[in-house]
């Protein structure tokens, strides 16, 4: 392989480029990104960056001694993967020839259909998103956050800190139940109430209301509130839509890759094509522990998995049998540090190993058939590290 293109210039793309050099690839390396910025860290966008504690410079992922000898093409989205001639086509008309490709195009925030351009309605994925939201977070303003997942909870926490009147609306009966299960989802999301955020669960959003501040005869240009399906209306100056991400894979249609909820990959990132691997939010790797492919939209996966995929790629698309660490994520809300590793299912047996849920400081384990499958820590970093290691070394069922 003489020319490798990494499509995507965020954490997964940068990690793939680093791994290619670290694993001895000495050929021509091109990194392509749709944003104009060099790789930056996204987790602070809903927290420290949103409240102004961190600056854009603080988010830079590259260090001064990164010397990847790569060509960077930024501000140009990939539009087509032409596997027959070995090239990637970009929105600016450029064609980048490559013998092998790492796909790391990530995901985008799901928006509220019909309100994509309404003033005061936000999503958070990019620095520009966070800057725009920050300008709307004025003390005393009313904000409604749609979705009580981790992004929604972090935005709510930041907005409370900035003195806003915060309401979170969640369609499910209990927030985070998919990730943490019913019982601990309820425990973890109890912090909203104790910090003065209103949490409304089990009610869907019917739509957003808006007003015309400029032109009549067009769609409303400024949000005024949120209508719930039970008939309630929540007045709002600002609305944040935190209802998940959509993988950026449309550009791969017709490429020969198998697409589902993400680029469908084997257990080490291999795709239907021997010279293509996929990593990060856009990739759904086969997980032997659950016998299915699924997308892991966590920062740590974008940091660690590219090295595995690159080893696969440099071996001609052959799975090297590397055991992938269980998914890990963290969230900082209202001054609490939440850490979770593994995959929980509704019927897992939960044990509080340390601390108590009432104090909101505990370590919980999830077991299935007696086997450790997941660990949750709230303000227990030292203990969490130990349990997480134990989880990583626990045998998985194939």
């Amino acid at each position, binding site marked *: 392989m003489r020319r490798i293109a990494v499509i995507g210039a965020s954490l997964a793309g940068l*990690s793939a480029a*680093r791994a290619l050099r670290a694993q001895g690839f000495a050929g021509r390396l091109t990194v392509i990104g749709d944003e104009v910025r060099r790789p930056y*860290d996204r987790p*602070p966008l809903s927290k*420290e960056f949103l409240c102004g*504690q*961190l*600056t*854009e*410079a*603080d988010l*830079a*992922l*590259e*260090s*001064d001694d990164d010397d990847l000898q790569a060509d960077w093409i930024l501000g140009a989205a990939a539009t087509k993967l032409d596997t027959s001639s070995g090239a990637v086509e970009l929105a600016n008309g450029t064609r980048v020839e490559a013998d092998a490709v790492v796909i790391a195009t990530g995901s985008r925030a799901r928006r509220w259909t019909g309100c994509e351009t309404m003033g005061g309605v936000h999503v958070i994925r990019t620095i520009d998103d966070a800057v725009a939201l920050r300008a709307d977070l004025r003390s005393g303003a009313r904000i409604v956050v749609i979705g009580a997942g981790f992004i929604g909870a972090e935005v709510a926490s930041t907005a409370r800190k900035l003195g806003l009147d915060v309401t979170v609306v969640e369609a499910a009966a209990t927030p985070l139940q998919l990730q943490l299960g019913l019982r601990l989802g309820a425990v973890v999301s109890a912090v909203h109430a104790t910090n003065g955020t209103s949490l409304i669960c089990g009610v869907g959003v019917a739509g957003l209301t808006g007003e015309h501040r400029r032109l009549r005869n067009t769609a409303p240009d400024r949000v005024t509130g949120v209508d719930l399906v039970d008939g309630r209306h929540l007045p709002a100056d600002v609305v944040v839509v935190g209802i998940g991400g959509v993988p950026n894979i449309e550009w791969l249609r017709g490429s020969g890759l198998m697409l589902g909820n993400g680029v469908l990959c084997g257990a080490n990132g291999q795709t239907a094509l021997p010279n293509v691997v996929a990593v990060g939010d856009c990739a759904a790797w086969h997980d032997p522990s659950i016998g299915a492919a699924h997308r892991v939209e966590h*920062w*740590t996966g974008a*940091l*660690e998995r590219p090295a595995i995929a690159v080893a696969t790629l440099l071996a001609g698309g052959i799975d090297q049998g590397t055991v992938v660490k269980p998914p890990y994520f*963290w969230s900082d809300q209202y001054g609490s*540090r939440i*850490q979770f590793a593994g995959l929980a299912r509704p019927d897992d047996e939960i044990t509080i190993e340390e601390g108590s849920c009432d104090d909101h400081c505990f370590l919980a384990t999830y077991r299935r058939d007696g086997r450790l499958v997941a660990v949750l820590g709230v303000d227990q*970093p*030292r203990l*969490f*590290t*130990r349990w997480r*290691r134990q989880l990583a070394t626990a045998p998985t069922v194939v």
Partner: protein
Amino acid sequence: MLEICPLSELPPGEALRVEADPPIAVFHTEDGEVFAVDDTCSHQDASLADGWLEGCEIECPLHASRFNLRTGAVDAPPAKLPIRTHAVVVEDGVIRVELSAEKPNLPPDIRARLGEGTKS
């Protein structure tokens, strides 16, 4: 010299966070060596004393950055800057630390809290 504790109170494989300005972490490795470094990860606010000690390397409990305890160098990202190391002396069974006079590489969120944040 900062007196930490008797060596017997810090078993091999264990770490201790010591309040100083900024806080430091003292590690007793499985090989019997004792190291002292700045406790706060240079990437984001996390206590390295809570991290995973393996050989002469500490892994941050939050984002898995790894630092060499002997040199303070970054062995694995996301950290970009090294942490300070402090000289350790074990005399008469007591661990003592001579704090480094270098400038610490505190993470940007801590610097912001201390009012030293940079504006871009």
